[in-house]
């Protein structure tokens, strides 16, 4: 099977179909120790059927495949809620320095003072940015940060012997990980409505918050890109009910230096280092989802946390820690990248990040609101949620618009999320894209709207020039083929 691209036809066969007996891409050194007896052959297996290809073929295969991707390095990627910003190359480089990449997680603390110092310093900076000084960098992604946060909330109530608090209140606009994490934490998920402005329906919240409330999970800014105007009232309602406030900080890119979550009454939050703090998404991870809490809750943090000792640094376990949520210390080399990012920007740079992220999103919103409906017709924070309902009536769905954007080298916005917005197209430009790029996006979005009437098939059959057209996902799920097999 071949496709035509800008480097000519491309062969997409899998590695096992390229495998030729006897080829190799690598050799191991000869053993330099006296030969040892092998175990009984009943323990031993036959060959592992891994591909047999040359080293050039390895490089060429993966290099060519890489070119089939959109990425930040090659495309504008206004994927809402995902904060696809520039991933500075220096951060990749520094996090891979020998002395960082080749240290073992179980080395004695005194042999890894630099690494622990980095973690401690990053903890402090994240605490300062969020106003929540207790920090653990253990969580391996946002969802694990949420889960860690919920474990902390549960531990807090348990420590007070308040065992009936088994409910998590979650807005209907929340990201799927919120209810999923709550369920993992054994919490019953109760949904609070959004009002017609996209805000939390405060009255509804007041009805729901009670002696069973363990935690209220709020995304700030919300998944509609809005800052909750009633935030102080909300945190008060929850606190008054005896519950804790958890902030999903996936959208922290809007808030750096503009407001501290801790000042608003938030007790716990997580942050995705792979969003706000620019660590690369890697096509779906690795990430890092530090959890930040108030001083009072710090003793419950998952282990380990980096601590300053009299004569240096150490990895420690908080007094009443909720335990280990993964193998070692979290995503160290992701943390190192985030650290480099914070140090490179500094206080004023971080403020500038959020200021520019907000201005860019509002600019797009202002330039498109005559053509596209808005999920909420007010100023947004770092992202704007468009609704393609007008376009839908004219025969073209949000999905189609998203696919058509690909033809222009622009990645699709986040589609059909949040669930409460019909035909949602969530656009997050980030501060790292230039006004010129925003203007190009705006022009393309307007052109697509024009195409609906002029040449709808251009949209309905999009994308046109990519390695594949739209895929049959239904059959994929009905008859799953999940691996190569000899046919």
């Amino acid at each position, binding site marked *: 099977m071949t496709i035509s691209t800008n480097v000519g036809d491309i062969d997409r066969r899998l590695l096992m179909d390229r495998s030729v007996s006897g080829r190799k891409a690598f050799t*191991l050194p000869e053993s330099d120790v006296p030969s*040892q007896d092998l175990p009984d052959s009943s323990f031993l297996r036959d060959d592992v059927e891994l591909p047999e290809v040359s080293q050039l073929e390895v490089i060429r295969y993966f290099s060519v495949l890489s*070119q*089939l991707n959109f990425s930040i390095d090659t495309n504008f990627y206004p994927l809402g809620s995902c904060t696809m910003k520039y991933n500075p190359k220096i951060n990749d480089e520094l996090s891979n320095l020998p002395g960082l990449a080749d*240290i073992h997680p179980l080395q*004695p603390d005194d042999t890894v003072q630099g690494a622990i110092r980095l973690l401690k310093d990053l903890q402090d900076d994240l605490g300062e940015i969020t106003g929540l000084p207790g920090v653990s960098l253990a969580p*391996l992604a946002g969802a694990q940060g949420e889960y860690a946060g919920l474990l902390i909330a549960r531990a807090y109530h348990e420590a007070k012997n308040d065992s009936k608090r088994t409910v998590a209140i979650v807005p209907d606009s929340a990201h799927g990980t919120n209810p999923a994490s709550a369920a993992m934490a054994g919490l019953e998920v109760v949904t609070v409505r959004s009002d017609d402005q996209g805000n939390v329906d405060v009255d509804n919240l007041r009805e729901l918050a009670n002696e069973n409330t363990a935690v209220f999970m709020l995304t700030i800014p919300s998944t509609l890109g809005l800052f909750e105007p009633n935030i102080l009232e909300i945190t008060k309602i929850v606190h008054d009910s005896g519950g804790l406030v958890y902030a999903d900080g996936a959208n922290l890119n809007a808030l750096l230096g503009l407001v501290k979550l801790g000042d608003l009454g938030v007790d716990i939050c997580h942050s995705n280092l792979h969003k706000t703090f620019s660590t690369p*998404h890697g*096509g779906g991870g690795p990430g890092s989802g530090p959890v930040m809490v108030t001083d009072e809750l710090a003793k419950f943090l998952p282990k380990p946390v980096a601590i300053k000792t009299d004569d240096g640094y150490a990895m420690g376990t908080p007094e009443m820690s909720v335990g280990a949520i993964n193998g070692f210390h979290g995503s160290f080399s992701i943390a190192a990248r985030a650290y480099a990012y914070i140090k490179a920007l500094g206080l004023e740079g971080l403020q500038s990040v959020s200021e520019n992220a907000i201005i860019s999103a509002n600019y797009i919103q202002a330039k498109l609101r005559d053509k596209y409906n808005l999920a909420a017709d007010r100023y947004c924070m770092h992202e704007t949620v468009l609704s393609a309902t007008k376009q839908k009536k004219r025969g073209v769905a949000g999905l189609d618009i998203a696919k058509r954007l690909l033809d222009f080298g622009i990645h699709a916005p986040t589609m059909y999320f949040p669930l409460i917005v019909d035909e949602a197209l969530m656009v997050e430009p980030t501060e790292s894209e230039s006004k010129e790029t925003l203007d190009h996006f705006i022009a393309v979005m307007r052109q697509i709207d024009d195409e609906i009437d002029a040449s709808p098939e251009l949209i309905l059959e999009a994308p046109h020039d990519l390695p594949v057209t739209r895929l049959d996902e239904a059959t994929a799920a009905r008859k799953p083929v999940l691996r190569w097999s000899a046919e």
Partner: protein
Amino acid sequence: MASPTSSGTNTSVNHPYIPSTDSEREEMLGVIGVDSLDGLLGDIPVEHRHPALKLAPGLSEQELSTVFGSIAAENASASSGYISFLGAGAYSHYIPSTVRSILQRGEFVTAYTPYQPEAAQGTLQVGFEFQTVICQLTGMEVANAGMYDGPTAFAEACLMAARVTKRTKVGILSTADGRLPETLVAYSKHQGIDIVEIEPDATDIPDDLACIGIQSPNFFGEIEDVERLTKLAHDNGALSVVHVNPTALGMFKAPGEFDVDIVTAEGQPLGVPMAFGGPYVGLFACKKAHIRQMPGRIIGRTTDTKDRTGYALTLQTREQHIRRERATSNICTSTQLIGLMVTVYAATLGKQGIKDLANLCYQKAHYAASEINKLNGFTVDALATGGTFFHEFVVSCPSSASSINADLLDKKIIGGLDISDRSENGMLVCVTETSSKADIDKFVKALSEIGASS
């Protein structure tokens, strides 16, 4: 009202990561229809806007490099002339240049999760290759595209076993790495899961177990009788969950040969830097029958409107973004890029390489074990008991492993892990292909000197 750090004006700091200039900002604000940024922040309680922040000023790239240079220099590692015998879940292996080279491709590194398959065939095809590699290595029918790390993969496997069997008790072999039950506890404590310890020679297990969780090679480096234990589990209506060392699979029988239900592993040994513990990737494979209970992202093959093969995320209705609180897991951002490293590693080593590698590790560890075993006061447990081991082995030392390690450190040797909590004066020593004979001999000599003087 605003604090001194306020930006009531519209001048932001000009930074290499932020393209907008003052005049562009001015122009955009004009289009938006506000005078200043603060006009957009109306929803933020004014008394909390623009708080004072204690953060250092920004650094130039050159200064940042200097900062990192000092941090790295404060760590001891192979690159600063140390030799190390630590394993216990993270392993030093040579990483081929192909892995680093492909890992530099920005198109892989800076892409998002492939929600738009037309624009992500690279990531998707690699993920499909990854699933294939994991199946080939483990001998299992299906695999997902990766979990956070080994222990979380194991924990999710036990939770999955509970869902599949509709039972709530999980048995874990007493010889497993303590990190496995520890993570499982954190993952399951509010889901009513009980954890019981099973001895490796048990012939009887509770009849309400969801699964037996077996680590093999176990924490002490020894191969467990997975076949017998799996049969025992199945005889009692439980699943068998086996946590492997993937390097060992170059040599030892694959769990798939023993009818195991779920296999998990720490993928780090397959081409991933130790990096002080992460990011790594959890490997997760199971029988096809259980596919819809599998956590994590799965990539499937399909066709486009022109009938060309393509790849896409599939079975997404298991996932949190669709099924929310009823999802098979909360996992969202996972470890695709580490999966790429594993895939390139497997493609590079290939059929012969993985075999040669396992053999080389075996040879070196056994050489080290037999040399240490000759020393006065040191005994290698597995050699005494006739256990079959891989990568690592327990040394019973004449005194505590930490005191010995302190002396070793003076000789620029990072000794094995102190496991006195599990074995008296025990040191878990790991040897891979990255240790030369000279390194091993140096270690043995140092142990003998330290042993003699203690």
